[in-house]
Structure formats: C-alpha cells, structure tokens
C-alpha cells in the first residue's frame, strides 16, 4: 500500500462546476500538506500549503485537511478550462527533513 493514495482520474467536469480532489494517507506523522498543479509538459507549481486541520481558502481554491481521517481535499469553485491540469498532493512530517511524499496525481479536465 502506498503511503499517499490519489485517484489518477481523469476527472472531466463542465466549466463552472465545483471540483473536489482528494488524497488519503496512512502515516499519522504527516503534519504539513501541499497541493501542486502541473500543466502538461511543465514542472509542478505550488498551489496551496497548509499545516492544520480545517480549511484554508485562496480565491477559488480551498484546501481541507482532516487529520483524524487522514484525508485531504482540494476544492475548486467555478472551474475554468485553464484549471485543466494534473493536481498532486504532497505531505511531510516534522523531523522528516526535507522529504516530501507525493500522491500520484489526479488529471483534471474542465470542458468549456
């Protein structure tokens, strides 16, 4: 079993839909959580960073962490075709040094 599980998709939604992307993890030591967005043939770019349970909002994006369930989510409101990309979750634990553990990524397609 992988430490971080993420549905690879593809997830296809119409423009304007609310998108929910999810990751589950098994290591209860993970305390810091990130979402990266990766456009085709580009490097991942940091989208959201959070270290506590609950919600963090940034524009159309909301990151949610539920440590008791070992479950994190990224919500995208009013999705746009420009949101079409692969979304990677990543996480790390205190004392893990600089190492991130990544999910495999979910490919999202937003259709106009």
């Amino acid at each position: 079993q992988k430490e971080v599980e993420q549905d690879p998709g593809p997830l296809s939604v119409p423009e304007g839909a609310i998108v929910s992307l999810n990751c589950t993890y098994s290591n209860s030591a993970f305390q810091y959580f990130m979402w990266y967005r990766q456009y085709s043939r580009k490097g991942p770019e940091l989208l959201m960073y959070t270290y506590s349970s609950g919600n963090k909002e940034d524009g159309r994006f909301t990151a949610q962490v539920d440590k008791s369930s070992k479950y994190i989510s990224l919500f995208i409101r009013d999705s746009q075709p420009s949101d079409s990309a692969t979304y990677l979750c990543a996480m790390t634990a205190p004392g893990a040094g600089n190492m991130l553990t990544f999910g495999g990524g979910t490919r999202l397609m937003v259709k106009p």
Partner: protein
Amino acid sequence: DVKVTQSSRYLVKRTGEKVFLECVQDMDHENMFWYRQDPGLGLRLIYFSYDVKMKEKGDIPEGYSVSREKKERFSLILESASTNQTSMYLCASSHGAGTQYFGPGTRLLVL
C-alpha cells in the same frame, strides 16, 4: 519569486552516452532535489542534497550520480544512459523543511 531553471527542456541521447542535466536556483536554498516522473509511477526521488558537496540517495539512485559544487547548482549525471531512463526529470529546491519549488522539467529520450 523563486526561480528554478533546468538546462534543457528536451534532450535526445543514445544508449551508452553520458548525460548531464543541470539545475540552477536563485533563492539561496540549501536543499535541492532530482526526481523523475513517469506515467502511473508519479514522482520518484533520485537524489537530494542539503548542502554544497553533500548528497543523499533517494528511492531510485541506481544508474545516476549527482554533483553539487556550488549552492545554487545541482547536476544529475547519467553515467551510461539506457532506454529505461527515458523520462521527465524534475529538479526542485527548498529552504529548510519548507515547500519545494520545481523547475520546468527536462524530457529525456534515450534511443
């Protein structure tokens, strides 16, 4: 903004060639990383470095070596390229235990 640059976007090499991939970051980050990314396998860590001349093996170091002579520069070396090293190579840097910032990637094709 953090900028991580990689020497090539696309590279085509022949089996047995020695391949150098270079990465440069401009934010004085002490940590630098090399990953490869393959469909269905996600991001896999090859090597990382937390200081000049320091290096640590990641999950898949076989067939690769690295060099970090200056803080801003981290090189990945394929001593004798093989077809199974055809992949997308991503460099990243970070400060402390913070988030990692990625370069644009190098698509390497080994024929």
